[in-house]
């Protein structure tokens, strides 16, 4: 053998050895240290975005993975003094509902928009559980752009999941209610209470939502939902519990039936029925609130009617799949074939097969009906059971490599099992009592199966104690290998229910740096300091201040001629056009929050001075080296004073 041959051989062997080595590094438990895997060096950025629901905070929090660093809290359903969301005059309409202004809600299940069953990273949707609503948040601005109220519903829990081309975002009803609402005895629950399931269409270009139709389902509790994909695209699956239709002490009375249902809804069929006019138009009242990025203003419109389909009258629209013990999560695998029901009181998981279901429908393998809706035969639709997987199964996600990961609340663990063989492969404890879990893209055809985040309900001793109330804990596991590996434990904000994640490369490049001033169409915006002014509406007590900010002053910063009892609207435009240079503003004694104004944006707060004097306002965001100098004064005179309105900056 020639020396050159040796060298070649050596090179080849070494390459093989190194590649084997690289593989073992990727191999979960055999990989590098946990600390190395989650360490994102200063100046480096995370690999994934994770959007965690804030639960009762009403907001959505943004985390980086694998570091577990919190990057932002996006206000959605709750007023947020940090930015002035819900306090500024522009964003108050976003909180409008048929019940009036609602300052809070319980945000549960974020879902990222998809095209062809894959994440497209354009928007993220989230549901309000208490006063049923769905919000759409832009992933360019990370701002809530739209909120639509869901009528005829209560406890909007089985929401806001999307179909695989974002045709629809759905809403369900966890607390069935009389439809239409009326004054009847609670004992008359059975038959009178309904659980509306709503399909809200999403405009392909603008993302604008519209309540397309509702399917008026029997009065069960519709708990969670997931879309079909691939072959099962066109179907939507919802878990039900309380098929007993109990209306009191549900912890006992809703746990009596051996099996509840997964409702399989054929929404393509629903579209046909709508096209054929087989719907009734019901009078209803619900708010549709839209925030315009150019006027920087939200507007609320009251809608008056909704199209309703009756599944008991329309064959082929809905089928029930019997599923043991009050199923909570219903999750569809990336291929769209398997529908996993997590009977939360059961020790096993039930997996239905979509092709079995279609065959059972074809052959009419029915096991009776509920209110005229066919119940499919359990044996005919089930593909398998994951036996003795754990106690208290809740949610399942998929890694795209044929494995599923299910959380078990009571036994406090994440269990990895294989689709098809239904064998348990691995289990890892969580700290403690895990609710949801999330694999980026786990609810799509193409999951990014590198990490799973377990979101726990109980924290106890995981962190330094902070009094009786602790933030919930989350754990990050590496799932790239055969066995899961615990990497990181981090606190989360509010109560994360579901979460959605996506690779940073899908979202980061499109993130907006600031708003173009020239595109600002706010009616009270100013384009430069020359346009700033103070105007009194006729002889009324309404005064509009057209104010601007730029490093490091307000224009104008001295205002006189304001009187006690005036309603002074400060419309403030941030003239900056530079990434991450917001200015804030706050007025002494103003009964509202500060405003944080992004470059190119205009925001408005209302001040109703009650006392004579000279009152300062200032910039609340440390904007620049001369931030402390960024302030101004307003002189407030008695109501009967005849001081003319005047304003100035540097005496000019």
């Amino acid at each position: 053998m020639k020396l050159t041959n040796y060298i070649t051989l050596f090179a080849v062997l070494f390459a093989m050895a190194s590649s084997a080595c690289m593989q073992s590094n990727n191999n979960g438990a055999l990989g590098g240290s946990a600390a190395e895997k989650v360490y994102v060096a200063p100046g480096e950025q995370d690999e994934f975005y994770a959007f965690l629901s804030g639960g009762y905070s009403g907001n959505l929090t943004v985390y980086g993975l694998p570091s577990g660093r919190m990057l932002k809290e996006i206000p959605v359903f709750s007023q947020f003094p940090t930015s002035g969301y819900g306090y500024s005059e522009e964003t108050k309409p976003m909180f409008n509902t048929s019940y009036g202004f609602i300052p809070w809600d319980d945000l549960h299940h974020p879902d990222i928009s998809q095209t062809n069953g894959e994440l497209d990273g354009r928007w993220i949707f989230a549901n309000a559980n208490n006063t049923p609503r769905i919000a759409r948040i832009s992933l360019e601005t990370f701002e809530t752009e739209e909120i639509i109220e869901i009528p005829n519903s209560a406890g909007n829990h089985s929401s806001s999941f999307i179909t695989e081309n974002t045709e629809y975002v759905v809403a369900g009803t966890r607390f069935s209610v009389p439809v239409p609402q009326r004054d009847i005895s609670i004992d008359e629950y059975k038959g009178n209470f309904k659980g509306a399931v709503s399909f809200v269409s999403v405009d392909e270009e603008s993302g604008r939502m519209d309540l397309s139709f509702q399917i008026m389902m029997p009065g069960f509790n519709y708990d969670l939902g997931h879309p079909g994909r691939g072959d099962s695209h066109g179907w939507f699956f919802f878990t039900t519990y309380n098929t007993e239709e109990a209306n009191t002490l549900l912890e006992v009375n809703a746990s009596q039936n051996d099996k509840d249902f997964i409702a399989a809804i054929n929404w393509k069929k629903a579209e046909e029925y709508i096209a054929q006019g087989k719907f009734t138009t019901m009078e209803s009242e619900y708010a549709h609130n839209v925030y315009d990025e150019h006027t920087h203003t939200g507007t609320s419109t009251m809608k008056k009617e909704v199209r309703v389909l009756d599944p008991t009258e329309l064959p082929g629209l809905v089928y029930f799949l019997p599923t043991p013990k009050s199923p909570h999560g219903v999750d569809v695998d990336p291929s769209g074939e398997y529908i996993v029901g997590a009977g939360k009181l059961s020790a096993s998981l039930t997996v239905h097969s979509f092709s079995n279901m279609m065959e059972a429908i074809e052959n009419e393998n029915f096991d009776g009906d509920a209110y005229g809706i066919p119940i499919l035969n359990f044996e005919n639709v089930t593909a398998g059971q994951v036996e003795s997987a754990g106690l208290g199964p809740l949610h399942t996600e998929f890694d795209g490599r044929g494995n599923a990961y299910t959380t078990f609340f009571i036994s406090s663990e994440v269990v990895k099992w294989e689709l098809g063989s239904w064998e348990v492969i691995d289990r890892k404890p969580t700290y403690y009592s895990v609710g949801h879990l999330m694999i980026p893209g786990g609810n799509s055809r193409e999951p990014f199966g590198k990490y799973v985040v377990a979101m726990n309900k109980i924290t106890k001793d995981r962190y330094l104690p902070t009094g009786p109330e602790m933030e919930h804990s989350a754990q990050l596991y590496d799932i790239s290998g055969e066995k899961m590996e615990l990497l990181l434990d981090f606190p989360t904000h509010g109560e994360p229910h579901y979460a959605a994640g996506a690779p940073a490369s899908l979202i980061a490049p499109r993130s907006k740096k600031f708003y173009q001033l020239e595109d600002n169409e706010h009616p009270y915006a100013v384009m430069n300091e020359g346009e700033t002014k103070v105007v009194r509406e006729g002889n009324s007590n309404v005064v509009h201040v057209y104010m601007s900010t730029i490093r490091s002053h307000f224009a104008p910063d001295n205002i006189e001629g304001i009187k006690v009892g005036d309603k002074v609207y400060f419309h403030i435009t941030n003239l900056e056009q530079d990434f991450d240079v917001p200015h804030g503003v706050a007025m002494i004694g103003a009964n509202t929050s500060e405003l944080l104004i992004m470059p190119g944006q205009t925001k408005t707060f209302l001040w109703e001075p009650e006392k004579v004097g000279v009152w300062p306002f200032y910039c609340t965001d440390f904007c620049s080296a001369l931030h402390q100098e960024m302030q101004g004064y307003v002189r407030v005179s008695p109501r009967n004073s005849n001081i003319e309105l005047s304003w100035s900056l540097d005496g000019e």
Partner: protein
Amino acid sequence: MKTTTFLTTLLLLATAACSSKSEQSSSNLPNNTPLGQASVVDEDSDPNILQVAIGSEDHSTLVAAVQAAGIEHVLVNAGPLTVFAPVNAAFDALPAGTVEDLLKPENKGKLAGILTKHAAPGSYNIDGLKKEASKGRKLYMADGSYLTVTTEGDEVFVEGAKVIASIQTSNGIINVVDKVIL
């Protein structure tokens, strides 16, 4: 030949360096809570099912069995849980050798199965059990089985085991029973 040896050595070194790196990496996280939530030290809160059982002399066999099955964390879970807790005498009444056999590591799964048959999701004190019996409802247990509740006069039986006492704990109810439910 010399060259071949040299190359082989190098190759082995390369592989060894690589594999040794892999080995050290697997479990470098300290596990401060080997029993999950059962490891949490908290002496101020009301005691939970596990803590009450540990404190009861009459349930030392049950506690030993729970520990052998490694399911302590289930009994400290938020619940609510109802546990039917056989007294030591109930275990003694089993055929000789049964308990010893179940405590063997290889029977851990079987033991866990038997114990979870003694736990039900939900809160059922004696009054609650009587109500279930009067409505003819069965109790759904954590292992997936159903147990029959019956009454005789003022006494309540679960699958033939008599409920001697009912103790309220922070995360559920312990119903002391005189038999092991198999």
